[in-house]
Each structure stands twice: as C-alpha cells, then as structure tokens.
C-alpha cells in the first residue's frame, strides 16, 4: 500500500492557484524529497498532506485514509520548520520535549512512567544525545536541538516521518550527521521519509526519490 497518495489535488488561495493537479505517490520505505524554490507551493503541499488544508479538487490519502484519522493513531513523526528557533527560551529539558513524542502511548490524563523515560533515554542514545537529557533545550547548539526534535519525532516508532526544512540554520557537519541518522532509520527500520527542502542534497546518500514543485506543479525527477 502507498504511504502517501495525492491524486489530481488542486488548491487556491483567494482565487490564485497554488497547487495545480498535484500528483504524488510515496511507497513504504521510500526516502523522498520535495524540492522547490521559495513560493513554489512546498508549504501548501505539506499542509495538504498534513490535513491542515483540504484540496478543492482531488484527494490526499495517508496509509489509504484521511490524514486527520492517521494522526489519532500517531503513525506520523513530524519535524516542523524552525520549531526550536521559535522556542529558544522555552523552559523545558530535552527529556520533557522528547517525551511529547510518546503522547499516544502515555495516554490522555496520564503521566509518563519509567518505561517511557527508558524509551526516551534509548532514543537519545541513538542520537548521541543521552548526556544532554536534563539540559534545557535552549542551551544546545542548532544541530543538537534538531537531533532532539528528530528523537521526539521517532521515539513513538512512527511509520512515516515528515520533515519541513529540517537543516535550516545548521552547519555542514551537523547536516551530514543529521542525514546519516535519517538514512540509518530509513535503511534499518524501513521508515518512510518525506523531507521538504530547498537546500543542497549532496550530503544525503539515501534519497531514492526526488520530487520538484514548480509553480504548483509536482514532477518526479
């Protein structure tokens, strides 16, 4: 079954078309990248995939169902653009932030238990960040912060990971390390990845599909 399917989707902002007959099919285990210039429609396309916008024509499906229903089952890990930069002063430790990735497993009205903290510690260990567990998020470098966000997105063992411009503001060494982690999860856990970026892709060896969006039209390269 396809993980993401977008079929003839169209979307307009105040009459101006942003996505024109958008077609996208991402299969299980793909490491797909969506590239395009600023204003090409990347963010709108992502909002359609994330169920924040509904296409005026056509349809979007994740795991064969409506995006909104998938979120309730927590099958998606998501790394938003600039989320750390916007929350530099946020008074939370690395552990507290990664624990939010286990929301569905902890359950509504419940507090995290030892088993959840153990999972967080293990995931941070895989990111090489275990020693920073009790640090405040704002005290870390940009690259370290993004690895924390990756740990948060992956700790719930999702089937699909969506990343929105994840390497913005990171130095080249951190980008390389970040892509290495992504590739290992894609290879070893067959994690399906959709990454939106306008950056260079040379550092990332594991990408198997590249989609380009230009003036609202999506084409595979």
């Amino acid at each position: 079954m396809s993980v993401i399917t977008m079929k003839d989707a169209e979307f307009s902002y105040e009459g101006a078309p942003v996505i024109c007959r958008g077609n996208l099919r991402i299969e299980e285990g793909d490491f797909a990248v969506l590239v395009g210039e600023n204003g090409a429609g990347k963010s709108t396309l992502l909002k359609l995939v994330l169920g924040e916008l509904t296409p005026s024509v056509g349809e979007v499906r994740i795991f064969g169902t409506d995006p909104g229903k998938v979120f309730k089952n927590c099958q998606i890990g998501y790394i938003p653009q600039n989320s750390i930069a916007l929350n530099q002063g946020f008074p939370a430790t690395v552990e507290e932030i990664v624990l939010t990735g286990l929301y569905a497993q902890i359950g509504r009205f419940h507090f995290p238990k030892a088993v959840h903290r153990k999972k967080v510690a293990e995931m941070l260990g895989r990111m090489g960040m275990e020693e920073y567990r009790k640090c405040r998020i704002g005290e870390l470098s940009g690259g370290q912060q993004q690895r924390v966000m990756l740990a948060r997105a992956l700790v719930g063992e999702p089937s699909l990971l969506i990343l929105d411009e994840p390497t913005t503001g990171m130095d080249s060494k951190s980008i390389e390390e970040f892509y290495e982690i992504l590739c290992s999860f894609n290879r070893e856990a067959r994690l399906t990845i959709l990454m939106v970026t306008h950056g260079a892709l040379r550092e990332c060896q594991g990408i198997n599909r590249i989609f380009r969006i230009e003036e609202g039209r999506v084409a595979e390269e």
Partner: protein
Amino acid sequence: MSVLQYAFMQKAFIVGILLAIITPCIGMTIVLKRMSMIGDALAHSSLAGVAFGLLLGINPVLGATAFCIFAALGIEGIRKKTPRYSEMAIAIVMSAGIGLAGVLSGFVKNSANFNSFLFGSIVAISDLELWMVILVSVLVLLVFLLLYKELFYVGFDERAARISGVSVKTVNFVFTLLTALTVSIASRTVGTLIVSSMLVVPVACGMQIGKSYRNTLILSIILAVLFTVAGLTVSYYGKLKPGGTIVLTGVLVFVIIVVFKSIRIKYKKHKAVQ
C-alpha cells in the same frame, strides 16, 4: 502574628494564596503561547461585566465571569480567523471591553463599588466570593493537572501536538474557559488593572531560574505565593493598596533576578576568557 488577628485579613490571605497557586498555572501557558496580554484584555472585558452586573442588580463577579468567558471565546474565534496576526485578536477584544466598560459605567449609580474593581479589594471579600474563589481554584487546579501534558505540548508546538494526536481544539477551548474563570475571579480581588501581572510576573521570574518545565511551574507558584504573602503583609503595615503591593513585589523580584543573572553570566564569561 497581628496581621492575622482580623478575620478580613485571614480571608485575604486564603484568597490571595489560592489565586497565587492557580494564576501561574494559567500564566505559564499564556506566556509560552505568547499571549501575555490576554489577561489584560479579559480583565477589561470583565470590567464591562461588572458594570453590567451592577446595572442589573446581580452579583458583579457573576457578570464579570460571563463577560470574561464571552471575551475569551471571542479572542479564540478571531485568532482562528487571523492566525498570522493572532495578537490582533487580543487588542480588538480589549478595545471592545474598555469601550463597553466606559459606556456602561456611565449608568452605574454606585461608582465607588465599580471603582473598587479597578484595583481590587482583597481585604473586602464577602463569604460568597471566598467560596467562589475556593471553587474556581479547585476546578482550575484539577483541570490543569489533567491537561498538564497537553498544555505543555500545545505551548511548545501546536501543529506538532495536533499531529501527535492531541485534540488541540478541545484543549484550547477548555484552557480559554479556565483563563476566563481565573481572570474574572482574580479581577475582584487584585483588580482588573493588575490581574494580568499576576498571571505573567511569577512565570517570568520562574522562567529565569527554572531548569525544566515542571521546575519552572513549581518555582512560579512558590514565588507567586511569596509575593502575595509579602505584598499583603507590607500593605497591611504600610497602609498600601494590597493588589498593587503584591504586583510591585513581584516586579521588584523579577528585576533583581534579571540583574543577578546578567552579572553571573558576565562573570562566567570573564572567568572563561582568563
């Protein structure tokens, strides 16, 4: 302690401490969602409710609560319509609240009663108001604890929270109601002009020294209780307005923390260079 020999002061301490416990719980999420001015907007709307209550001859606190809830839902509604400029919603509701309070106050015969809501009258709390504060405090604390995880997540990243399965709309709606209840009840005691500071100042202090979210919240509550106890005691002996004294105590402590912290950072940098 002679300050506690009078029943009105005992009541003032009970009410003040209860509010000091719940206001940082609400204030924490308000600050983290970058909506620090919402307290002001709701407090001014509650003032319109006070005038409305006095005009109709009903308990002004009930009028304030009703107007506050209406204003809070209005802010949420406008925020959804203009997500990029969400702070505009606060300004619009605040303007409406001030305007309405101004117009309605012109018809209120007992202006002294109306004016007492501006700076509050924590030492003139009736038994009914005391019970209302106790009830609202228990309710706010209970719901806050139940939604602790959700409020943390929504405060950090609303979009990611929704994708993780958090019912963001419900959480925001419940939180809006809690904020309205807290502000309306606090307006009576510390005053509409000061309630916003009660929500924000202890959290601002806590954020300067807290190591984690939990730690920051606990510190904010402890500091708010200390500001209240110190403010009430100083105001009693110094014959000052209690609401203003409580808030000024908090602001003074905030300035001290910020100055101390910047000196410490400079010292550390200087030491690292050496």
